[in-house]
């Protein structure tokens, strides 16, 4: 039907526009401060994509994510600070190390269910945070570590300027979004969603639930580790608070604002929320008052977040348009089934 084709076309154009905007941003940004804010937002968004896979698609509320972020940041930061390793080596090592730890954590925590899982992952996050904070000789304790080197240049490409770092982070973000969208639209992603819906039924159908959960957990940790590594070379300072649970809660908030179990959600939510945060910098304290309340409101009234709300609005509109057409011309409606698809495994 025309309408649907048109909608897909609009979607395609919208993607291109967003992409062009992302490329042009350093040149149109009114000041350099915005550029740093957006770059940091992109880094967080990569971690939020990881969380999205576990909370949104797999339906398991893991609260260890900031721990993994800190682990990635410290692994990469320490390797380049203490051993002088290049960023291009320390980043993949950090990602792999984080994934390995996460798989061990997953092996223990996925044997538990429901609230036990939530509490256990929360505690594991706290342990990682506390170990980073207390292991003074290695991590510098609460004082942290300064002077993590920037990524070394590859051939003629240097990463000294803000712009070049922005593009570096953007490249990783695009990679993350690409990988995530491929995964969630495949049979692998459908498997995650089926576990979210009913673990028992999935197992009865022959799906190895534990293996799938570990896979999702591992992929999420991999990207969270990358985000941490990018963070350490961008901010160039490491403090234990980047592994603290309140960062997990912020990631969760970003995800819920944008929309869990959607591909655009993590980016939209992170940019929006961290944008608001930055513009409310002068009232740092009030921000958490608003966010805490917002979290409750969102989860009660808009569990699909902004992207989810837009989608259901669109589906409603489509349905109405179709009904009007149907009553006019009596054509069989395809929009109905399209709307159904939108509501289904999305």
């Amino acid at each position, binding site marked *: 039907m025309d309408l649907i084709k048109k909608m897909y076309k609009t979607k395609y154009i919208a993607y291109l526009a967003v992409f062009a905007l992302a490329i042009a941003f350093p040149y149109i940004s009114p000041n350099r401060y915005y550029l740093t804010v957006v770059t940091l937002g992109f880094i967080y968004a990569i971690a939020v994509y990881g969380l999205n896979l576990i909370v949104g698609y797999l339906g398991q509320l893991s609260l260890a994510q900031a721990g993994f972020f800190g682990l990635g940041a410290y692994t990469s930061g320490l390797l380049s600070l203490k051993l002088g390793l290049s960023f291009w080596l320390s980043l993949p090592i950090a990602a792999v190390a984080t994934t390995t730890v996460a798989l061990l954590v997953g092996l223990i925590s996925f*044997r538990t269910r429901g609230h036990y899982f939530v509490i*256990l992952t929360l*505690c594991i996050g706290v342990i990682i945070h506390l170990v980073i904070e207390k292991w003074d000789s290695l991590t510098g304790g609460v004082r942290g570590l300064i002077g993590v080197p920037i990524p070394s240049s590859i051939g003629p490409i240097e990463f000294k300027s803000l712009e070049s770092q922005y593009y570096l982070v953007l490249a990783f973000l695009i990679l993350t979004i690409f990988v995530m969208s491929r995964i969630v639209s495949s049979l692998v992603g459908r498997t995650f969603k089926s576990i979210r819906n009913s673990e028992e039924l999935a197992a009865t159908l022959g799906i190895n639930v534990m293996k799938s959960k570990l896979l999702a957990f591992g992929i999420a940790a991999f990207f969270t580790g990358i985000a941490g590594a990018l963070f350490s070379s961008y901010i160039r300072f490491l403090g234990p608070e980047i592994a603290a649970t309140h960062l997990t809660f912020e990631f969760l908030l970003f995800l819920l604002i944008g929309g869990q179990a959607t591909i655009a959600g993590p980016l939209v939510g992170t940019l929006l929320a961290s944008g608001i945060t930055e513009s409310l910098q002068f009232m740092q304290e009030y921000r958490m008052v608003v966010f805490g309340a917002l979290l409750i409101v969102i*989860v009660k009234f808009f569990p699909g977040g902004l992207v989810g709300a837009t989608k259901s609005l669109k589906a409603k509109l489509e349905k109405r348009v179709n009904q009007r057409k149907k009553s006019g011309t009596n054509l069989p409606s395809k929009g109905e089934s399209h709307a159904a698809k939108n509501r289904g495994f999305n």
Partner: protein
Amino acid sequence: MDLLIQQVVNGFTLGSIYCLVALGLTLIYGIMEVPNFAHGHLYMVGGYVTFFMMTLYGINYWVSGLIAGIVLAVLGILLERIVFNPMRNSPSTNKFIAAVGAMMFIEAVARVLWGSDFRSIPAIYDNVVMIGGVRLTEQRLIIIAGAVILMVALYLFLKHTLIGSTIEAMAQNRDGASLVGIDVNRVAMLTFAVASLLASAAASLSGPIFLVYPSMGALIIMKVFVIIVIGGMGSIPGAVLGSFILGMTESLGATYISSNYKDVIAFAILVLILSIKPSGLFAKGGH
């Protein structure tokens, strides 16, 4: 030897405080089947209310504690009405997230109102007494005695009043199959009120020793979760036992293992327990 006895007493003190908070949490869990992440923050607010009653209005320590208890009971009811009751039929993940939201909210409000400084509830019972060759401050004895009295009071309330026994029955038997004709709303509100009161009492008792600050709730809530996982979620005797086990372990661990990593001990215990028994230490059921 003296050091050991000293640490055992400290373990009891710590255990008493954990116990008052854990009892409330386990009751709420039993009734609502939701881990109330904000419970530690009610404890924190209780500490602040006591502190301000004493320092701003010069009210007596015990009366301040009582006022704090009442204020917190009301706050607990509000929390149940505004956050948990509307979420009753939501998926459990959403309930957890709402609880996390409540926790962020309360802590942020505390920071805005009272700043991030550490405060100390004025100590009026800081005389040192010698019992069997061990030096103790009176306040530690008051904490232990206070906790015991409140536990006995709670026990009497749960066993010998109609509404109390309803709460207990609902907490122990979540299917509630045999509990037709109960006003669930009333029970839920009352449970939150009692639980918050206990948390507030814990803060009033501990405030003179352990200080009052906005993030005190975040640390205790996680320890208390460890406790109710050890004791079996929803179980009252389990919560008491778990509290003293943890208090003692931390106190002795800090002395004899590492004071630097003493906070890690609690979480390490939890990870260990759930690695060995994924369904909790005292899980029911016959699989």
